[in-house]
């Protein structure tokens, strides 16, 4: 009898709530779910990328492991975990080891404020958008750390490029997000979704939406902006010296970052979880994955920009246009109100 009571989940739950408090408990469970979700999502995205690339290139992509090869990435993941973690002798050990861990942290934080559905959000903070952008900045730091600590010329060049690129592209990214914030009047992710009652912001802000997507592609270091890891020039860029799961963490972070920027784009411009018939989370995921597909499609079509052209593109085209767009938005809002 006693064991029966112990195993009763309700009793355990009540005890835990009494001990930790409801809020803390939800946060912990949410984080656990996020951790699992990050893995599953990355595995799915890698598979999707390989399938999309395959079909664009007249191939079929993975097909041997599991139905349609869906288990292929799991097998690859196991391979990565099983591999030896090579640490070259002349690296700065602490930074070298810290970098892949640090690249993964901000990724998790962003999930706290992403509104998957009308109620499905871990914490709706009133500066949610700022939180995401603030933590996205840490990404650059870890890439710089990894590239510098590797003591490899290719890695160093990749890291330097990455810093310059991320700094330049964060500006149009923020400016285009800002014009949405002006329209909705809030920085809370849920608030922004609520402000898109009826019409999505992409119809009011097509230019900002486009700029955001371009900036987001650059932020996540995806082609045609993948110069930090430009394969044909820098071998593997900042993660040249990383092997095994350390490389795996960079990889995981890249795909999760992709999910986050697409999720933010969905929230800012495509109405978040809004949509007919289906419940909110489904709509949210559908929109996010369509955006991710577009990003992949771009990657497998376009050649890579050169480093200085990339900077020119940011400073000469994207930032002026984003500024003008912000100005026009502010003007229109002032006149209408």
């Amino acid at each position, binding site marked *: 009898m006693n064991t029966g009571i112990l195993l009763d989940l309700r009793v355990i739950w009540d005890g835990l709530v009494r001990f930790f408090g409801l809020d803390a408990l939800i946060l912990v469970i949410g984080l656990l779910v996020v951790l699992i979700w990050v893995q599953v999502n990355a595995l799915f995205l890698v598979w999707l990328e390989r399938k999309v*690339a395959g079909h*664009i*290139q*007249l*191939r079929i992509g993975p097909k041997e492991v599991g139905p349609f090869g869906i288990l292929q990435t799991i097998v690859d993941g196991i391979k990565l975990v099983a591999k030896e973690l090579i640490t070259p002798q*002349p690296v700065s050990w602490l930074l070298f080891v810290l970098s892949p861990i640090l690249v993964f942290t901000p990724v998790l934080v962003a999930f706290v404020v992403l509104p998957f559905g009308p109620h499905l959000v871990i914490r709706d903070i009133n500066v949610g958008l700022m939180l995401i952008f603030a933590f996205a900045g840490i990404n650059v730091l870890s890439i710089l750390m990894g590239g510098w600590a590797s*003591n*490899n*010329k290719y890695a*160093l*060049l990749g890291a330097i490029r990455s810093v310059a690129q991320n700094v330049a592209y964060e500006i149009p990214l923020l400016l285009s997000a800002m014009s949405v914030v002006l329209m909705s009047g809030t920085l809370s992710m849920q608030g922004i979704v609520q402000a898109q009652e009826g019409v999505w912001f992409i119809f009011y802000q097509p230019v900002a939406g486009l700029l955001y997507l371009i900036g987001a592609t650059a932020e996540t270091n995806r*082609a*045609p902006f*993948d*110069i930090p890891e*430009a*394969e*044909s*020039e*820098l*071998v593997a860029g900042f993660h040249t010296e990383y092997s095994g799961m350390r490389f795996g963490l960079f990889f995981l972070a890249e795909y999760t970052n992709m999910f986050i920027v697409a999720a933010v784009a969905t929230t800012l411009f495509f109405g978040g979880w809004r949509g007919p018939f289906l419940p909110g989370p489904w709509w949210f995921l559908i929109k996010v994955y369509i955006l991710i597909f577009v990003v992949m499609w771009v990657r*497998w*079509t*376009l*050649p*890579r*920009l*050169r*480093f*200085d*052209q990339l900077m020119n593109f940011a400073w000469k085209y994207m930032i002026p246009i984003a500024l003008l767009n912000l100005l026009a938005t502010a003007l229109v809002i002032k006149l209408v109100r």
Partner: protein
Amino acid sequence: MLRKTLTEDSFYLNLGPQHPSTHGVLHLLLKLDGERILECKPLVGYSHRAHEHMGQNRTYLQFLPNTSRMDYLGGLCYNHAYCLAVEKACGIQAPERARYIRTICAELNRISSHLLWFGAYLMDLGAFTPFLYAFDDREDILAILGEITGSRLTYSYCRFGGVSRDLNQNFRDGVKAFIPKLRKRLKDYRTLVTKNVIFLNRTKGIGVVSPEQARDWALTGPNLRACGVAYDIRRAEPYSVYPEMEFEIPTATGGDCYDRYWVRMAEMEQSLRIVEQALGRLPDGPVKTAGVPQWLEPPAGDYHFSYESPRGHLGIYFVSDGGRVPLRMKWRTPSFNNLSILSEILPGTLVADTIAILGSIDVVIPEIDR
């Protein structure tokens, strides 16, 4: 190592011999100031197999399989060139039909070589997809050539006084289906790549070679024609059935990466024209001259033959003492000279441009090293 060099203004970067875009085992020693190149030294010889020396140690026929292994992308062209050179030395004339067949095969080989270059170049520039499209087209050519040569890369197809095998129906059908298919594909490439604004930015005005520089460094082939010099051995010193063919020599004026790209794309179209004409005019008859001795003994003397390989001027020089084995053999392969201009045009460019320029020159390393 890095810490030491970082305190100075510049550092050395060994680009290759193991690097994703050195197309084999090229080693470029770059002196960098940040990302800007101060000095470039191409180091070659990693895949030296002493082909010329082998030529001096075996009979003319026995050297034939080696020829397609020097330039693995233009194997048939090298076969063809070697056979023409030895035939010229021995005074053998291949039958009309064989000469047409050789021309068709050599031009198909040229297209496949350019297609591979196209794919690999776009890969260097960071676009992965055109590589696979180009390989799809190239696969067609390899299947067509495999039909009659029995091999896909190292053909050994031409023989002294002919070719080893006659055309069959599969070959004709294959070529007839392939020509319109590639023309359609070239149109897609134009939309996907040639007009792409990123591609234009990456290639226009990059790695400019003036006609004078091109002459000084003995550039040949598409690299020379991209500088505005319409020099093509198929016209300048015609051989085989080229005098009877109608085709143009595409030239550009800029001498930059984009022009080199454009010239090669235009050359593919001209090669298609040649194949079409040659197949239409294909005469009947034998494909091999009867009575060519197995062990040829060219009269004593020096012989030289020039050939337009996909990469430029291929020169074959050998000295015969009247015996079965050449006394001296020397191949002038185009990529060697084409590569050497790197040390002239690379300084001042960025690392990303290095890859773009190196790719645009279309080097095949085993051909340089021989």
